[in-house]
């Protein structure tokens, strides 16, 4: 596997980079949905994420990425083999390819052992590998319906339960779903849309100078990755340190009542259903405040994340031709006059 394009070297696409960063600071924000044209650096950004995330400490040998200091209670591996030592793993960023089978996602009977030794054993699937990390679905809008249902279920409960003919496995599966797709090729079901914490619309840069810079960097990377990676390593490390610091600061960041009120007002003004929008908006604003080393969430933080947290939760209104982003911005101006 070649080394991924450095996160810091991605030109523009600030909103996408910010959304991904915020989920790294606070995974409870939920997933990120990146919708946009082809060739806008969607998959590049996600694949570069791995290098940006702080590694995780896991129980050595545990295929479910159990934390060493607190292995999951029902973990099939850790309950059978008491954890002995910890090992550091890179934070998982797992690809969920289209056309993947259900067995491969949730895990299934270990074919190898069943066939050769007649043993009944569970082979963990992609959900197990993605625990405590990211699950990346390219072309999420083209994913088979039954896989989508399954992901929804696991994402909601944070736990993967497999019950098959005497094979009963239950393991934690908490991950950030990152989905990307091209809306022209199919819409996403509203239920799935709602599960994503943040949504980002990306477009090809229209400015020539920016386009040229993209091409220049990408070309340099493809020509000779080593010096290019070296040049950006410092920036990536800086970013990673900021994420780590923000994680530690996160709990200490105050959320003033005034900000909570504004959050509620904003959601009501937009008619965004349910509390999920409010919660995500608050969490995202808090993560941003932590990332920017602020002590408390300010309205400015709210303003920066509002579009991402809410635009995919609006009811569709065929008569309002303004895009969702515009509608969120309009509401923002009413609730938080600048």
């Amino acid at each position, binding site marked *: *596997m*070649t080394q991924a394009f450095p996160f810091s070297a991605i030109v523009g696409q600030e909103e996408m980079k910010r959304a991904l960063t915020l989920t790294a600071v606070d995974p409870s924000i939920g997933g990120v949905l990146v919708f946009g*044209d*082809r*060739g*806008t*650096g969607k*998959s590049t950004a996600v*694949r570069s994420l791995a290098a940006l995330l702080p590694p995780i400490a896991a129980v050595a040998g545990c295929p479910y990425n159990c934390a060493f200091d607190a292995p999951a209670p029902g973990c099939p591996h850790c309950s059978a083999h008491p954890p002995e030592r910890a090992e550091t793993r890179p934070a998982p960023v797992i*690809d969920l*390819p*289209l*056309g993947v089978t*259900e067995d491969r996602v949730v895990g299934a*009977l270990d*074919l*190898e052992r*069943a*066939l*050769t030794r*007649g*043993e*009944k054993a569970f082979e963990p699937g992609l959900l197990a590998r993605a625990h405590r990390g990211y699950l990346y679905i*390219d*072309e*999420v*809008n*083209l*994913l*088979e*319906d*039954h896989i*989508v249902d399954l992901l929804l279920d696991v994402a909601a409960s944070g736990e993967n339960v497999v019950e*098959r*003919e005497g094979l009963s496995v239950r393991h934690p599966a908490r991950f950030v779903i990152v989905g990307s797709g*091209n809306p*022209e*090729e*199919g*819409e*996403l*079901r509203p239920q*799935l849309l709602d599960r994503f914490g943040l949504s980002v619309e990306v*477009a*090809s*840069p*229209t400015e*020539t100078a920016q*386009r*040229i810079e*993209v*091409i*220049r960097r*990408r*070309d340099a990377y*493809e020509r000779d990755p080593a010096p290019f990676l070296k040049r950006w390593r410092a920036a990536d490390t800086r970013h990673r340190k900021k994420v780590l610091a923000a994680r530690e600061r996160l709990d200490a960041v105050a959320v003033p009542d005034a900000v909570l009120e504004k959050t509620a007002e904003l959601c009501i003004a937009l008619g965004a259903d349910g509390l999920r929008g409010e919660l995500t908006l608050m969490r995202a604003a808090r993560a941003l405040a932590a990332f920017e080393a602020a002590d408390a969430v300010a309205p400015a933080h709210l303003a920066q994340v509002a579009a991402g947290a809410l635009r995919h939760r609006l009811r569709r209104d*065929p*008569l309002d*031709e303004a895009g969702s982003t515009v509608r969120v911005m309009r509401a923002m101006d009413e609730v938080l006059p600048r």
Partner: protein
Amino acid sequence: MTALASAPGPSSALPSAPQPAAGATVTVTDAAGAAGDAAWGTALWAARLLALDPGLGGIWLRAGAGPAREEFVGAALAASGRPAARMPMGAEPARLFGGLDLTATLRAGRPVQAAGLLATLGCGTLVVPMAERMTPGLAAQLAQRWDAGAGFALLALDEGEADEPGPPPALTDRLAFHLTLPPRALRDGPTPRPAPPSQAERARLGSVGMPDEMLMALTEIAATLGVATLRAPLLALRAARAIAALEDKPAVDAAAAERAAALVLAPRATRLPAEPDQPQQSDPPPPAEAEDRDNQAAPGDAEAMADRVLEAALASIPPDVLARLAAQGAARAQVQAQGGGAGEDRRGAGRGRPAGSVRGDPRRGARLDLIGTLTAAAPWQALRRGAHQGRDDGRILVTPDDLRIRRHRQRVERVVIFAVDASGSAAMARLAETKGAVELMLAEAYVRREQVALIAFRGTAADLLLPPTRSLVQAKRRLQGLPGGGGTPLAIGIAAALSLADQVTRRGQRAHVALLTDGRANVARDGSPGRPQAQADAQAAARALRAARVPAMVIDTGLRPDRAARDLAAAMDGLYLALPRADARALSGALRGALDGSGA
């Protein structure tokens, strides 16, 4: 030139890439002969470049099965000098990407891993027949391998007609070359097969310089031609480097950039730069600059360079670009309607061609997938026998968990609804042209086994002249007798198209609306005159069409295309095509070209 003894030089045995034709007025009718040779030469060039740098992804080759295509595939594989494999039809992912070999495992009693086709290929070439049928899932997996650094090249053979969607865009976006192979006569005989790139050429590739103005020029051209994806200019850069390496140049020069633009960017063009709303901002470069073939041009000349390279690219834009644009729109709509994750899903258990199998209960009216069920049950047999002592009577033990049901995907018939503006503003002369264009599109629809319906609107009403039918003759007759004149009740026309589309959808067919108008509505929905209200109503009707998710396109028949029709297309989320006076000929020519191509 060094060490080219084994490989024929680009100037000798191989026809070179097409040079910018003077005036670029190649009509479709005389596209044989010289143009065909040039296209063939271009294709071989692409093959050589791909051989030198597999990082170019591959070639999307649109051509019918036949000796010409085989000739080209043979030449391309000979040029690559690397291993090649043909993708087996309906290959399981495990066959392609590797996995546990069930048969061998059972026989050997120990796990036997089968290496996937891709792993054995390494940097070789994967030939994909019938690429147009490739599922988005497989395309996504291939793309993922590339992203992870796999070095294989792809030769995607697409047998689709000119207006069919082709392989999934996730794939074609990553293939540098999009080629259409011209028909070849038998008398042309076998082409000389290009030799694999020499060591020297490979060595040179790594050291070819890329002057910044070339990089800027290629990026700008891509933007000018409306190529949004940034992969395209990157692939063009790669191609330019490979061209320079083959021609033994130390750095990419203007000629190499021109060829790269012609090869990689021109086929992706979605618009021509000379559109009416895009006046040329810069003055034409002084001739001295344009003739400056020196690759060490100062950065200030970047614009002039861009213009030159653009010219070369324009010259090689195929004359049927408009037809292809329309086809892309249709393809987009088609994909839109497929949208696996979305609600409008025609995958079911009933009819159509198989689309895999899923775990399920056949008692609920679905059909049992016997092989799938047995496959699911197979690995459990040893375990289950162990559980049922003495039950080893040779029977296969199947439990409800194993049951698999078959899923099918239905091919849905399309109904193209033509809504034609027959008002006075679409002046009589234009109406005749419009009729001509409709007639051509009707014929095209007929070739594709689609049904067509015809609605005409004028005065204060819309008439359904022709309910959905396959009869071309009938459609033509109704069209001939179409009277013109009166106001433009655009909203009424669109509403009529929508209600017909509704009917069609309820019947289980898919509707597609083609609206031919100048967009200048002046009769409101309730039949009252007045431009502002009429425009607002038309917009509302267009949005209703979008809300109903009916794919639509607007063909602007106005003499001077303006915002009205374009806004309408935007409101419908549909494709917009202008049919301005000067281009009317081109459009019908392009349409005819598409027809000839598909009729052959």
